[in-house]
């Protein structure tokens, strides 16, 4: 068995499901199963996260550039390969996009909504509470 990060997450999830859930009080079993699902979805996410979040950032900055060139330039300068820092940038980009979208309606707003819809569709397999649409697996 490999011991890289993603394999480790999946292996620990299996350990929780196969061993730990049988050994804890019944009222804790649900939390253990939830922990296993968390590890599995985290592995799914981490396998593609850096690439996907970079695309999301680029997509939204491209849409914001016409009305907010300075803010976009600043956020582009913060591009990073560090996952935690990248998430900070993504949050700032969402804040900027919200600001721009608040001034739009009709087709202008639709372009943003379509873009955000594409992003949301690609993230569906990162969660385990709701059914994942076919094609998003």
């Amino acid at each position, binding site marked *: 068995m490999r011991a890289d990060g993603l394999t480790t997450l999946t292996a620990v999830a299996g350990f929780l499901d196969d061993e730990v859930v049988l050994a804890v009080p019944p009222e804790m079993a649900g939390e253990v199963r*939830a922990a296993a699902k968390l590890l599995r979805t985290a592995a799914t996410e981490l396998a593609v996260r850096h690439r996907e979040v970079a695309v999301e950032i680029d997509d939204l900055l491209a849409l914001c550039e016409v009305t907010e060139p300075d803010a976009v330039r600043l956020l582009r300068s913060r591009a990073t390969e560090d996952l935690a820092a990248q998430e900070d940038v993504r*949050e700032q980009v*969402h804040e900027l996009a919200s600001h721009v979208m608040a001034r739009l309606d009709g087709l202008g707003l639709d372009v943003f909504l379509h873009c955000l*819809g594409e992003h949301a569709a690609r993230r569906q397999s990162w969660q385990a509470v709701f059914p994942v649409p076919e094609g998003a697996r």
Partner: protein
Amino acid sequence: MTVELEAVLNRHLGTQVSGLRRLAGGASHATWAFDIGDRQLVVRREVDSGLLASDMRGEFDLIAALHAQGLPVPEPVLCVTDEARAFMVIGRVDGTDLRKALAGGVERTDLGRRAVQLQAQVHATEVGGLRGDGPAGEVHHWATVIEQAKAPVDAVLAAALAWLSQHLPDAAELTLVHADFKANNLLVGPGGGLAVLDWELAHRGDPVEDLAWTMLWTTRDDLVGGLLSAADYLAHYAAVTGRHVDPERLRFWQLLAVVKLWSIFLTGLRADTVSPTLLLMGRSTVWLQARALDLLRVR
């Protein structure tokens, strides 16, 4: 905790309880089963890391009022609000959840229609003293919960809140709404009758708000998408109540339902105690994003 809770129950009930055991928890409470002789009871108690502001007294009084009117709800026994954590004691409803009932051969469409009839019965029940602010009040309420969660800005959530504020439906007749009417709050009794649990979110509101929340849950074991299609659900509700649901009103309340659930999940991420279940819910906001975008992009 079991010992402490047992002592509290013994003191307030004036007798020795037995068989105290933890059942599944909810968003703002923990639930335990216990017995007093042959009497089977449940205690629901507030938790420190509750997702929702709890009004135990309000919920208990509502259950008492509904029980007195013959609705299939747990029997009210006792409510205590002057302990460190408020709790209520109610009768344990004899029944199984929908998933087990369906596995046992209960017919889906029939069960679905009876659930709709029960929901309609709730909407037709008169109860005083409940909060009810209408659409603007509901949007404000959940927007405030989101603000208090102090989560990072999400462009989709911000767009949803803006749309809701700009598209408030006209005032409707306000009725009692359960506000969490879904499969895991329904029990099927031995004779096939349905009972409704968990009234913590109930208030006076637009009945379409209630329908929209029910329609958010669409697995094979849910009322809509499982027992009935969305079209059959609305058609049967209209047949039972005479209320034909306006599509734009439904769209508003469906988006509000998404925002409401999103706010509950965000609140869970603020909890001081790490709970894998709450984390799992917090990570599922991507599904709510997709659902919100579907509703925002309807033409």
